[in-house]
């Protein structure tokens, strides 16, 4: 069997979610019962690992394009520009008023359609879950819709001769998993160190191709997404019972005594 020094150039798609800044307190809109997303949206930190991994894998393969795909309200693109500034070549955004209230399955349908628009995608990378919705089912749902195999919770990824080799997180440690391409892989946070965009990268990102699609452009029936497609209804939003307020002390040197006394009271020490 011939051993190639380099892999063939590999096109990679990264699913990139644009979310409200987690530093701002989140809120549910009491009318629509969805997460308020009217402010500026940023690239989910969880997705920066996927973007970085994609850039490194493309480089290791000796070339290939990294494409971002995203679904967001109001044609928001700020988060995608961040990913383009890191080095992704182009982006595809699906935005449509009919997508309001779309669940994880509907989101996966949209992302899968957008991925279908990308020529020759061999590898699809996602985060394991978003930082705001954290359903954690979208990677597997995207793979299922595309009819691709998938490996979730990757803590390392290598591609050699058309096969992806992954260390997959488990409760006890990790499993080594392999799979022929094309394949969907979800990456854990911390898998690589995401680069900071350079000034040059930020400037270049402004003119990189960013396709904006409606549902119709993406070829998706509006009835299969949004509130109508969900098959679920929010019947209550309530405050969780608050924990009884604790005792908080400024440490004046007696903090340790207070902890020891607390543990004694519980008969721990």
């Amino acid at each position, binding site marked *: 069997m011939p051993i190639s020094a380099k892999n063939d150039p590999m096109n990679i798609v990264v699913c990139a979610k644009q979310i409200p800044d987690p530093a701002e307190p989140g809120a549910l809109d009491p009318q629509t019962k969805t997460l308020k997303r009217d402010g500026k949206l940023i690239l989910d930190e969880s997705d920066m690992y996927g973007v970085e991994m994609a850039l490194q894998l493309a480089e290791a393969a000796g070339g290939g394009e990294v494409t971002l795909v995203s679904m967001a309200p109001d044609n928001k693109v700020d988060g995608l520009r961040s990913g383009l500034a890191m080095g992704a070549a182009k982006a595809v955004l699906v935005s449509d008023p009919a997508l309001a209230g779309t669940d994880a399955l509907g989101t996966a349908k949209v992302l899968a359609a957008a991925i279908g628009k990308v020529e020759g995608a061999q590898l699809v990378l996602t985060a394991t879950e978003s930082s705001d919705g954290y359903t954690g089912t979208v990677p597997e749902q995207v793979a299922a819709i595309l009819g691709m195999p998938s490996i979730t919770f990757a803590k390392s990824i290598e591609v050699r001769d058309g096969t992806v080799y992954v260390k997959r997180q488990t409760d006890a440690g990790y*499993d080594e998993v392999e799979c022929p391409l094309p394949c969907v892989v979800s990456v854990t946070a911390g898998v690589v160190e995401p680069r900071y965009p350079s000034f040059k990268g930020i400037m270049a990102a402004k003119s990189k191709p960013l396709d904006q699609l409606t549902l119709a452009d993406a070829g998706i029936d509006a009835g299969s997404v949004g509130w109508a497609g969900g098959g679920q209804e929010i019947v209550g939003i309530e405050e969780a019972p608050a924990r009884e307020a604790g005792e908080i002390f400024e440490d004046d040197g007696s903090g340790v005594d207070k902890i020891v006394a607390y543990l004694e009271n519980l008969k721990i*020490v």
Partner: protein
Amino acid sequence: MTLSKIWVYAEATDGNVSNTTLELLTKARELASTVEAVFGGDGASVAATLGEYGATTVHATGDLGGVLQGVPVAAAIAAAVAGGAAPDAILFGTSYDGRDVAGRLSVALDRTVITNNVDLEEDGGALVCTEPVFGGATLVRTKFTGGGPNIVLVRPKSFAAEPAGGAPATVEALAVPDTGAAGAARVTNRFVEERSGPSLDDAAIVVSGGRGLGESDKFQMVEDLAKLLGAAPGASRAIVDAGWVPYSYQVGQTGKVVKPTVYIAAGISGATQHMVGMKGSKNIIAVNKDAEAPIFGVADLGIIGDVHKVLPKLIEALKARG
């Protein structure tokens, strides 16, 4: 009124059924008149335990030969549902494989998945799920409106596991259809990361460290304190991502959900991500130098102070007591 039938996706390591599986079986007994299990492996190895916790039948695929669970188990369940065996609901634990199977199944059945639930109830023949958002400050209740089976992901430790004293579950073969290229991801090796002391799952006391420790060497203070207290050491996502400790230490939304008698948070600010994993602890002690840190909102005892001063003194004080 109850549902007529619930399936629980069972998970096991070397024949040891996971706690989450047992929790789900226990809850399912309350919600439905018939409780059965689905297992991606050799049913005989788990039939006794599953039966003890209330499953009358385990639908088992047999050994999957290292293929990841998501594709074959979801395909097998979908085929069974198409063949008329549909339960009202299928419950999954929020785990690596649980999310894979539930996600695949939702596509195969074109049904939504309701995720991250901490409570389930039945209302007029429909399942209502409770999900905490914003770090547990708000509870959202969601009802299924489409046809069954309802696909539900439930967070670990949402329910107590109580045996029902049932006989071993009857093992029934669950046929796996040909899944073609989609079923090509295969485990070739398994590695277990050694960790000392009690496990995060079982420990009565957990001591966790976060970014406030400053540098990775300082995690040793957390290990030392944990050892003195017979506690399990844990960590926030920030320092796991930074590579200070392995992922197996992580407490939070991703990572372990813990509910110990005492949880000590050292240098942890209390990001939403972390809080959902430890908020259910009976007693919470927090040490953090930032008085505004959200962790103080859930702490029973909070010390606004420097972990680099408080922890060494605490370790000394406990050592002095012998």
